[in-house]
C-alpha cells in the first residue's frame, strides 16, 4: 500500500515455479537426511545454521481434489486445526505462539495440504509438542468453528472484489470443468457456509494419518535431539484403520478442446483481467525444466515476448506473463495480464498474436542462451530460507521428485538445444482452441469475447460458486 513495486507484479498465482538451480558455481540441494517413524511418517531433516530459526512443514496427501462436493473442506480443515486441542484452548495456542514470535499456518493445494510452523530454534522443545497436538488431535470446538466459518465466508466474498484474487480459480474451473482439479481451492461462500464440526472431524480422521504424511524440519537444530523430539511428539500418531488411503485425483483426459470464453461480469470494473491457456503438463514431467527455460522466453521474465509486446512497446498493461502449473496427474498453462477496459480488444489481439508467433517460429540460439543464463542465475535465491527448503522437501515427497530436480538442474539447462526447445514448444504448449477467461465489464467487452470462442457469460457470484 505504501510502496509501489514498479516493474513486476509478483503474485504467487503467476510466479515462476522454477524447479532447479545453478549458477557460476553449481548450486546443490543442501545435505539432508530422511527416514520414517514406525507409524509410517516420513521425516526429512535439513540443518541450516545461518540464523537461529526453524521451519517445520507437515505435508498431508489430501488437498482440494479430495473435497468431493464439499468445496473447501481440506482447506477449511487446515485452517481450523488450531482452534483447540485436548490440552490447549484456542486462546492458549495463540498466546503461546505469539509470545515466542512463532507463526502457525496451513496451506492448501490441489494434491496436498501443508501445516507449518516458523519458530526460533531455541523454542523447539517447547513448541513442537504443541504443534504436533494441533496436527494429530485437534478438537474443532463447535463455537470456534462457527466463528471461523463466518469469517472465512466474509473473506471469500470480499475476495471477488479483486479480480486478481479469483482469476486463477475461475480459469482452473474452465479448464478442468467438473474434474476435482477444477474445484475452488479454498471453497466458496456457499460451500464453506455448509461445513460443520462433524465434516472437519471426519475429514481429519480420514486424511491426517502418518502413513500418508511427511514432516520436514529445516534450520538450526542438533540432529540427535531433533530425532528424539520428533519421535516423542509425532511417534504416537496412530495410523488408524488402514485401508483409508486418500485417492489421488484421476488423470485428466485430454478433452477435445472446445475453445471456450468464460466472460465474468464485474459491472464496476475499469479493467479487464484475463487468462488464456489450457491443459499443460504434470509436475513430474521429464520435460519440466526445459519447459521452464522455454516459458521464460515467452512470459517468464521482464524481457519476455509477452511483457515486451504488451507493456514495454505499447504501454497497454503493467505486466504480462505466462506459466505452467504442474500437478500430480495433470497441469495447466496460462498467459495472464490485465488492461484498461477500452484497451481490451487491442491487448487480447496482441497476446494471441505474440503467443501464436512464438509457437510457430520457436526460439533462436541467442534468446535461448539468454534464458538459460537467467534461470540459472535466478535459481539459488529461491531456496535461501528455511521456509522455502522445508516446502521444497514436502513438494518433492508429494510429486515423487528426486534430488536431481535441483542437483542436475544446471546440466539439464545447459544441455537444452534449440531443436529440443522447439520440440518442447510443439509438444506441450496448447494451441488448438484455447480457453479464455475475461473478468470485466461484460456490456463493454462481450462483442470482443465472441471472437475467441463460444462465450459462457456469467456473473462474478456464480463464477465464484463454481457454476459455469
Amino acid at each position, binding site marked *: 500500500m505504501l510502496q509501489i513495486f514498479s516493474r513486476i507484479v509478483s503474485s504467487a498465482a503467476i510466479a515462476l515455479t522454477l524447479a532447479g538451480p545453478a549458477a*557460476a558455481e553449481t548450486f546443490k540441494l543442501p545435505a539432508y537426511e530422511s527416514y520414517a517413524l514406525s507409524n509410517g511418517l516420513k521425516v526429512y531433516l535439513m540443518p541450516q545454521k545461518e540464523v537461529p530459526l526453524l521451519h517445520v512443514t507437515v505435508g498431508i496427501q489430501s488437498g482440494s481434489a479430495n473435497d468431493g462436493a464439499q468445496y473447501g473442506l481440506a482447506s477449511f480443515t487446515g485452517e481450523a486445526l488450531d482452534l483447540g486441542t485436548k490440552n490447549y484452548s484456542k486462546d492458549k495456542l*495463540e498466546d503461546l505462539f505469539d509470545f515466542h*514470535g512463532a507463526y502457525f*499456518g*496451513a496451506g492448501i493445494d490441489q494434491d496436498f495440504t501443508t501445516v507449518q510452523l516458523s519458530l526460533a530454534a531455541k523454542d523447539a522443545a517447547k513448541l513442537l509438542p504443541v504443534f504436533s497436538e494441533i496436527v494429530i488431535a485437534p478438537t474443532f470446538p463447535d463455537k470456534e468453528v462457527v466463528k471461523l466459518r463466518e469469517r472465512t465466508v466474509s473473506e471469500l466474498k470480499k475476495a471477488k472484489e*479483486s479480480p486478481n484474487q479469483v482469476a486463477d480459480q475461475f480459469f482452473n474451473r474452465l479448464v478442468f470443468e467438473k474434474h476435482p482439479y477444477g474445484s475452488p481451492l479454498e471453497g466458496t461462500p456457499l460451500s464453506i457456509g455448509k461445513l460443520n464440526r462433524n465434516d472437519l472431524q471426519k475429514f481429519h480422521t480420514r486424511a491426517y494419518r502418518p502413513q500418508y504424511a511427511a514432516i520436514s524440519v529445516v534450520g538450526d537444530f542438533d540432529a540427535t535431539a531433533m530425532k528424539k523430539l520428533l519421535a516423542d511428539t509425532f511417534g504416537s500418531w496412530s495410523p488408524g484403520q488402514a485401508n483409508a488411503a486418500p485417492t489421488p485425483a484421476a488423470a485428466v483426459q485430454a478433452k477435445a478442446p472446445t475453445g471456450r470464453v468464460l466472460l465474468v461480469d464485474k459491472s464496476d470494473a*475499469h479493467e479487464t483481467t484475463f487468462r488464456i491457456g489450457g491443459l499443460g503438463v504434470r509436475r513430474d514431467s521429464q520435460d519440466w525444466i526445459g519447459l521452464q527455460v522455454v516459458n521464460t522466453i515467452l512470459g517468464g521474465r521482464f524481457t519476455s515476448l509477452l511483457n515486451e509486446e504488451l507493456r514495454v512497446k505499447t504501454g497497454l498493461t503493467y505486466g504480462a506473463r505466462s506459466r505452467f502449473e504442474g500437478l500430480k496427474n495433470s497441469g495447466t498453462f496460462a498467459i495472464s495480464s490485465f488492461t484498461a477496459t477500452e484497451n481490451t480488444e487491442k491487448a487480447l489481439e496482441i497476446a494471441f498474436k505474440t503467443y501464436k508467433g512464438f509457437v510457430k517460429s520457436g526460439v533462436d540460439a541467442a534468446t535461448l542462451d539468454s534464458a538459460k543464463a537467467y534461470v540459472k*542465475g535466478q535459481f539459488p535465491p529461491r531456496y*535461501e*530460507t528455511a521456509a522455502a527448503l522445508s516446502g521444497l522437501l514436502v513438494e518433492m515427497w508429494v510429486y515423487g521428485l528426486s534430488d536431481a530436480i535441483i542437483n542436475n538442474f544446471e546440466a539439464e539447462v545447459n544441455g537444452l538445444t534449440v531443436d529440443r526447445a522447439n520440440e518442447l514448444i510443439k509438444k506441450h504448449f496448447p494451441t488448438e482452441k484455447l480457453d479464455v477467461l475475461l473478468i470485466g465489464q461484460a456490456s463493454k467487452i462481450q462483442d470482443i469475447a465472441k471472437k475467441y470462442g463460444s462465450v459462457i457469460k456469467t456473473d462474478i457470484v456464480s463464477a465464484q460458486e463454481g457454476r459455469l
Partner: protein
Amino acid sequence: MKAWQYAVWGALFGFAGSAQAVMQSSDVEVLQLKNGMKVLLLEDHSIPNANMYTFWKVGSRNEVPGITGLSHFFEHMMFNGSKNYPPGSFDKVMEASGGSNNAYTTADVTVYTNWFTATAMPTIVDLEADRIAHLKIDDAKTESERGVVLSERSTGLENDPWERLYEASKAAAFEAHPYTWPVIGFESDIKAWTRADLERYFRTYYNPSNAVMVISGDIKPADVKKLLADKIEVIARDEKVPEVRTKEPPQQGEKRVFIAKEATTAPQVMVGYHVPETKHPDFYALDLLTEILTGGPSSRLVKLLVDDKRIASSVSSDLPQAFDPTFFAIFVSGMEGKDPREMERLLLSEIDLMRKKPVSAQELQKAKNKKVVDLYRRMETINGKSQLLGDFEVFHGGYQKLFDAAGSYEKVTPADITRVMNTYFLKSNRTVGVQDKQEPADFRY
C-alpha cells in the same frame, strides 16, 4: 505452495535481537566515495549470488502539485535508456547475464534492486553506472511508459480494496506536507508531465551524494571496490539537493472521511494518527505498539474485533519508515453486514483504555520477542540483509543502529507505551476513514 502465506500482521518492519550469531556490525565494510556516495559491503557466501540495492533519497515528498507521482515515474524511466544502453537493453543485458531487477518508490526514497549471479558483478556495475551518469530520456519511451504507470495505478485501485480509502484518509490527515498525495500521483499529473520535468528531476536528485548503495553476497570486496572506483566514484554532480520545506502544522481536531463503494461486500474502517519520523526516540515504542495492537491473533485489536465481537475479519496496522512526521494507521476489514460505527467505537474504546491502563510486562515482552524473531527472518537472505542495512542507514541515521535495535526495544517500558499513547493517540490528532456501500446515518457527529 500456491495458497500458503503467513497472515500479514501489520508491521512491515521487524527487527531487534542479539544479532551477534547472525550478522555483526564488524561484517559490514563502509566505503565513502569521493563523489559523496556511501557504500556498504557485506560478504556472504551462502549462495553463489549477490545483490545491489541503491537507495536514492527522493520520493513523493520531494514533489509539488502538478508533478505528483514524478518520483515514481522517473524510476520507470531509469530503465529506459542511457548513453551506452539504448532503450530496452538495460533489461536485456542484465537478464542475459543471469540478473534480474526491480525498483520501488515510497514517499521518501526510490530504491533500485539488482539480483544476480556473483560473477556478473562487472556487468551490473556498468549498467548501473551508465544510467546514473548518462540517463537519456527518450520521448517515445516516455509516452509508452505513461501508459504503463496509468495501468499500474488503475490495477492497484482495481485489486486493492484499501487503496482509495487510504489515499483519501492520508490526504485529509496531511493538509500541508507532501505526504498528502499518493506516491503514484494523480491521474492528471501522470498524463501531463514533460521531458523537461524528468530531466530537471534527474539533475536535481540523482546526485551520487544523495544515494546509499548496499552490496551483499558472494563478493570479493577488493574486486568490487575497484569496479566502484572505476565506474561509480567518477560520476560527480555539484547540484545541491533542495530540502523539503513544508512542515505539517499540528492537527486541531478530528477529521473524518467517507468513501462510497457500491460494490463493496463489507465495510472497512481505518483510524490514523500523526506520529514522529523514524529517527525520533519514540519510534521504538510506536513500533512495538503495532505488535501490541495488531501483531498476531492474541493482539489487542484482533482479539477484540475479530475474536470476541466478531465484527471484523482482520485488523492490521502500519507505521511507515519516514524522514518527516508520519501517519500511524490501523485498518479494520469488517464482517459483512456489520456496522462500521460499531467497529470504530470498539477500536477507540480500546485505545482509550490503553491510555489509562499500562500494558502488562508480559504483553510488552511478547511484542519485543516478536521483533527479535522477525529480525532473524529478515536476515535469512542476502536480500533481506541488504534491505535492512540500507533502511537503517537511510532512515535511522546509520546502519550501526541495526545492531543496537534489540537494546532500543528492550529499553521500552509499559510507562513509555502509555506516555506515547497519551501523546499521539488523541482525538484531536486522529483521522477516521470509512468505506461502505452508503454513508452511515450519523457518520459526522
